[in-house]
């Protein structure tokens, strides 16, 4: 008889559906509980992370733009060091903890395609300055901020936590902005970008 389709009339089919339907009454509560506890709540818990990520990225991007408008590179570094003030807005979102931030200047020569990174003032070699042999160059201020983004609800477990679900996810924001002040200081004769 295997493989032979069973022919049922409409009344029989209706009866089977009714039998299945009757099972839903007792299972509905449990299904709802499982749906909420296993799918809806973890999803809600996770869904806050992209929101916080987007807001954090936007703030870091704005800060990078702001730092790139500094008069000198040393001023940008100094402003970045004032972490307490600088990342107040980022921490104000809630759920974002700033661990570390690093600022550097990436210089790409459009002529020779060579590039270099400067992490401190007065470190740019003369060839990479705006009047140097490598010029014209693109001066980009790079800001890297290491943060931990927490989900909506974090659970403190002794055995450790699942990043993103019960504990924070470590993330690095990396934003760049073109350095604005390419002029020269008449007092020192140096380029502001190298001061």
């Amino acid at each position, binding site marked *: 008889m295997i493989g032979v389709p069973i022919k049922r009339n409409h009344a029989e089919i209706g009866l089977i559906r*009714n039998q299945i*339907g*009757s099972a*839903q*009454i007792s299972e*509905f509560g449990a299904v*709802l509980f499982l*749906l909420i506890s296993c799918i*809806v709540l973890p999803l809600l818990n996770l*869904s806050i992370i992209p*929101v916080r990520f*987007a*807001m954090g990225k*936007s703030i870091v991007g*704005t800060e990078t*733009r*702001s730092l790139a*408008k*500094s*008069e000198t590179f040393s001023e940008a570094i100094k402003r970045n060091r004032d972490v307490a003030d600088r990342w107040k807005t980022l921490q104000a979102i809630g759920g974002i903890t700033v661990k570390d931030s690093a600022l550097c200047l990436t210089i790409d020569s459009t002529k020779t395609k060579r590039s270099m990174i400067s992490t401190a003032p007065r470190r740019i070699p003369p060839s990479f300055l*705006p*009047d140097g042999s490598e010029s014209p160059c693109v001066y980009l201020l790079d800001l890297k901020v290491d943060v931990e983004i927490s989900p909506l609800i974090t659970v403190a477990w002794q055995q450790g936590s699942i990043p993103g679900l019960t504990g924070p996810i470590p993330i690095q924001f990396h934003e760049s902005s073109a350095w*604005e*002040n*390419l*002029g*020269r*200081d*008449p*007092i*020192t*004769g140096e*380029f502001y970008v190298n001061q």
Partner: protein
Amino acid sequence: MSNGRRCARGNMLFLCVAIGLLILALVGMAFWFQLTFFSNQLLQDTSEKVALNAAQKLNENENAGKINNLTGCARELVFSARQMHSKTVAEAAFAEYEPLAAQVLEQSRDGANLIADERQRLINSSIVNLRALVKEKSAPFGREIALFDAAVEKPRIVSFSIGSLENLESNVIASAGVPELTAYDTGHQYIKHGKDFDFYRANDPLKLPAPDDDLKFELSQLPIAVNGTSAPLRLVSESHYKPSMVLVEDGKDAIGSCAIMPSCVQVLMSVKMKSKVATQLESGTQSTSTACTNGASPDPK
């Protein structure tokens, strides 16, 4: 039994509708957030563009730099003419040239006044140009952007001001041709000493010794060209900006005048986001941009 069946089916329908609504609400919120970030970025870009456009007008064709240099030259001329006239008065050997020296002095003073008038005319003309630009940009521009149920209105200018940067001086190099004038200016701290040359301070009357102290030689701030490098048009940090005149306040034209040629502009723009479904739901963002005009060109060799 039949009541139980109806109830079970109704519950499933309710559950499906509830989940559907929840998903719809989440998607709506996601779009709202996305549009908020997008509009903020758009606003920032737009305000920077407006600020740079306006700042460019402050030293168009390098007029501000040229009038500064002319003012510096006129000052030196008046000082030299006064010296010459004093010599013809003091020394009998040159007494017969006194009328000629007096004429030269008078003409140099007239020239200084003429340049001062021209400087004021340039300032007024620049402000008129800026007002025209602000008027053009004050009307909502760009295009409205809509995504799902949310729409971003066109950005508009809330306030617009002109001013200067702190620690920025003039583009006029102190001439070493008249040592007495250099000594006088150094004594009065009109000069700042640079590595390769000295230059005049800005926003200072730079008064000459009496009786020529009635003349004003105010130089405007402008980045000076150093070793052949001219400062490009750029965005600057708001923390270094000092406003001197407001052209637009709360979206309305403000009346005022400016005695010194500005070198910077600051613009505050805003954009509103509205929900098409829930019309009362709206939010807004603001962005401030400050720009400094391009510096003086290096002297032709």
